[in-house]
């Protein structure tokens, strides 16, 4: 081996075709993102890897020579033998199995100077693949403060790859790193682990059977063979990389190895860690203080037996309050702006179907989409600060016991909690859950949390049907509202439990979690995350929401000239000519009601009646159920329109009165208090919000989960309302 693995490059550096691809790889919390931001600045973009919802961050950087490189910031990983969707992506990119991301020409491996004992494990795995590796040791300043001295030249010698020390906070070492990236780096000639001969023989026999791949170096083929042997046949990407008969043989070989040498899988880990220990021993001049006073001081409070939960509850209260309440002025402002835009368009365009499409379909749909953004932005701000500071792991540590009861991890708590404000930011927040099955379970139960859009509906129905009475020190109204929230939580627990035992069964999830050192958040990258999350939502879910909004507008507006509507319009014209002002207003409300009743949505409401009659709902509620697909609170204005009150949302009192006194065709009372309760139960459990469906589609990357969600939640809602209504009638409450 040559002492320096560096060779001067003589390739044409200005040729964009030779633009070098660099992948940043490292443990979570190794300082990867900080380095990525320092190298690329604002020249980065966020997307998703094809077919999965793992975030792909790419950026550009110009080296001293003028050569431009493309940098991809790979998701934080502990190992190249993957245990989470993030790690699968990393493995696939490095082995050339990820279609939208060619393998890197250089792996920039990031390791924390104070945690080399563990971080070098991934470094050795990366070196073993046979690609050029450059090791960046971050947090050199933190190490020095603690009296930890490292001999980086010795580390370079021990690993066979160039090493550079960084203190990203003061940009120390960045120039040296850029210089190194400008040179051609050879793969390390060293091997750190040899499998026992019987395993090596199996792997060698496999190698020729793996199809040749232009992007995979020879040692990479060896590693792919090893990955195939270690995989338990669950990985679809690996399975596609080789013919099926090889997979069958692998199963036999694996079983034979398990019988003959039960510990064979772990040999590699022990071998690599022995090499890690040797490298650290060579590099460490003084060990210094191994304690971390900041961690000790903060943890003494933040995960204290009593203070930990107290702080957590207060903090969650603040998060909940801000997502729930602080977003209101922003959402109102957006509403106002959308309203201004709508009236501006109304002033410019002549009245007619086209204006109605633009104002009530498109602008309203865009408005719906944008009003979610404040909540998404506020929640991602909190989440990203929690992740960056290290508090997220502490929160999960505190809540893990509670969530484990329903088969989830502590990380599921915050997304579920946020879903009380709105399921959409909540579902987007499930990205912090690394186990795929746990994440899907959390997504599937998040919409059961009673969101803020259900509140106006509960308020209307409770006001109309729940008598004002004190029960102890609370009112019956308050108790009913609490019961609705409780019902949602109970349903979520039951469904999570059931999903984990049926469709989302399997795997042996590990709940091991790192409690990282506390760090100050990097505000620049926090704000970038907030921006990227909001934009991704607008682009991906926004299009579906907009399309659905236009479809709903059409259903509720056409056909617009049924027999009754034509008659009402004639009477309205007559009243206008006669100058009867109050009569005109009354007839306008009546016309809106008639048009809705005669529209496709109105007809659908009647068609729906046989299905919902057993729940106590008539066709008018049916119309409300259809229009509330746009957003649950639309139910209130729809009911007002149906009952000829206009869509005056501020006139809730008369709407309550109207609901209480509404009659059916034969003069009987249409809505009893029992119907009110049945309808609230339905709203608590049903999946009516297509924005949620759109975001689930986006976050799971398939229609399977949103469709299952629709089926599951609506069946459950129907059954529960059926039991409430029919049971209530049997008890004589109807």
């Amino acid at each position: 081996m040559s002492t320096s693995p560096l060779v001067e490059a003589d390739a044409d550096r200005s040729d964009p075709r030779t633009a070098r691809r660099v992948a940043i790889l490292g443990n979570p919390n190794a300082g990867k993102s900080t380095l990525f931001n320092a190298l690329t600045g604002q020249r980065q973009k966020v997307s998703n890897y094809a077919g999965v919802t793992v975030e792909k961050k790419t950026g550009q950087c110009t080296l001293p020579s003028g050569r431009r490189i493309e940098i991809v910031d790979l998701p934080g990983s502990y190992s190249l033998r993957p245990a989470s969707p993030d790690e699968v992506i990393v493995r696939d990119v490095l082995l050339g199995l990820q279609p939208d991301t060619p393998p890197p020409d250089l792996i920039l491996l990031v390791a924390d100077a104070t945690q080399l004992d563990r971080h070098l494990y991934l470094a050795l795995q990366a070196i073993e693949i046979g690609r050029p590796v450059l090791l960046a040791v971050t947090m050199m300043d933190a190490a020095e403060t603690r009296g930890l001295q490292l001999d980086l030249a010795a580390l370079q010698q021990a690993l066979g790859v160039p090493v550079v020390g960084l203190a990203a906070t003061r940009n120390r070492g960045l120039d040296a790193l850029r210089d190194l990236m400008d040179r051609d780096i050879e793969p390390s000639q060293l091997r750190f682990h040899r499998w026992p001969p019987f395993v090596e023989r199996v792997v060698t026999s496999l190698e020729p059977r793996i199809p040749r791949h232009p992007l995979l170096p020879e040692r990479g083929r060896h590693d792919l063979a090893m990955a195939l042997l270690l995989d338990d046949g669950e990985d679809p990407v690996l399975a596609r990389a080789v013919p099926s008969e090889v997979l069958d043989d692998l199963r036999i070989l694996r079983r034979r190895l398990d019988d003959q040498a039960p510990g064979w899988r772990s040999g590699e880990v022990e071998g690599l860690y022995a090499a890690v220990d040797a490298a650290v021993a060579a590099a460490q001049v003084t060990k210094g203080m191994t304690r971390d006073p900041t961690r000790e001081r903060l943890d003494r409070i933040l995960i204290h037996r009593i203070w930990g939960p107290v702080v957590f509850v207060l903090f969650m209260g603040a998060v909940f309050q801000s997502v729930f309440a602080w977003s209101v002025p922003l959402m109102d402002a957006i509403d106002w702006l959308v309203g201004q835009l709508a009236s501006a368009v109304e002033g410019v365009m002549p009245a007619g179907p086209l204006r109605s499409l633009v104002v009530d379909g498109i602008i309203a749909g865009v408005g719906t989409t944008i009003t979610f953004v404040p909540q998404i932005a506020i929640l991602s701000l909190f989440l990203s600060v929690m992740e960056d500071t290290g508090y997220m792991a502490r929160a999960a540590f505190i809540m893990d016991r509670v969530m484990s009861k329903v088969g989830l991890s502590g990380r599921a708590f915050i997304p579920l909690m946020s879903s009380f404000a709105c399921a959409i930011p909540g579902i987007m927040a499930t990205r912090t859950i690394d186990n795929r099955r746990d994440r899907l379970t959390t997504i599937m139960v998040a919409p059961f949390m009673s969101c803020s859009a259900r509140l106006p509906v509960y308020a209307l129905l409770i006001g109309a049907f729940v008598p004002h009475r004190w029960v102890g020190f609370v009112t019956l109204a308050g108790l009913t509202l609490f019961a609705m929230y409780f019902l949602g939580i109970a349903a979520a627990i039951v469904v999570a439990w059931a999903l984990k035992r049926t469709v989302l069964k399997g795997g042996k999830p590990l709940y091991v979690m790192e409690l990282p050192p506390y760090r100050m958040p990097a505000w620049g990258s926090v704000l970038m995350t907030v921006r990227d999350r909001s934009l991704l939502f607008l682009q991906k879910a926004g299009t579906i929401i907009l399309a659905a909004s236009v479809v709903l507008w059409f259903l509720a507006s056409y056909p617009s000239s049924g027999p009754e509507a034509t008659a009402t319009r004639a009477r309205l014209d007559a009243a206008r000519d006669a100058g009867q002002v109050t009569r005109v207003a009354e007839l306008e409300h009546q016309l809106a009601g008639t048009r809705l009743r005669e529209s496709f949505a109105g007809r659908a409401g009647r068609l729906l009646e046989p299905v919902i009659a057993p729940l106590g709902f008539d066709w008018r509620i049916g119309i409300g159920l259809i229009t509330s697909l746009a957003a649950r609170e639309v139910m209130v204005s729809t009911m007002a329109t149906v009952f000829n009150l206009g869509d005056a949302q501020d006139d809730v009192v008369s709407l309550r009165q109207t609901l209480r006194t509404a009659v059916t065709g034969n003069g009987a009372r249409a809505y009893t208090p029992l119907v009110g309760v049945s309808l609230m139960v339905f709203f608590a459990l049903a999946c009516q919000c297509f924005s949620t469906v759109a975001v689930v589609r986006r976050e799971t990357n398939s229609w399977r989960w949103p469709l299952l969600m629709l089926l599951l939640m609506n069946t459950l809602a129907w059954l529960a309302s059926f039991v409430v209504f029919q049971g209530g009638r049997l008890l004589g409450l109807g």
Partner: protein
Amino acid sequence: MTGSTGDRSGPGANPAERPLDRLAPGDSGIIVRLSGDPATARRLMELGLVPGSEVQVVRRAPLGDPIEYRIRDVHLSLRRVEAANVHVAPR
């Protein structure tokens, strides 16, 4: 099943050997072997719980589970059921 690792004398050979979840906060020990599902054991080792490494119990979560451990300068939280598969020789 006991897919043991780094232990040539078999389980129970060391009378002082104890599962990690039985250690009290403040205690420490040297990892002797890992038992249980081989893939899970492998993953725990990749996270630093390799035989021969020292592990220290830092604290229990407020509700008693999981437990925070310090290993190879890294702090890990393990559920009791997971820690039960890590066998240590107490010091």
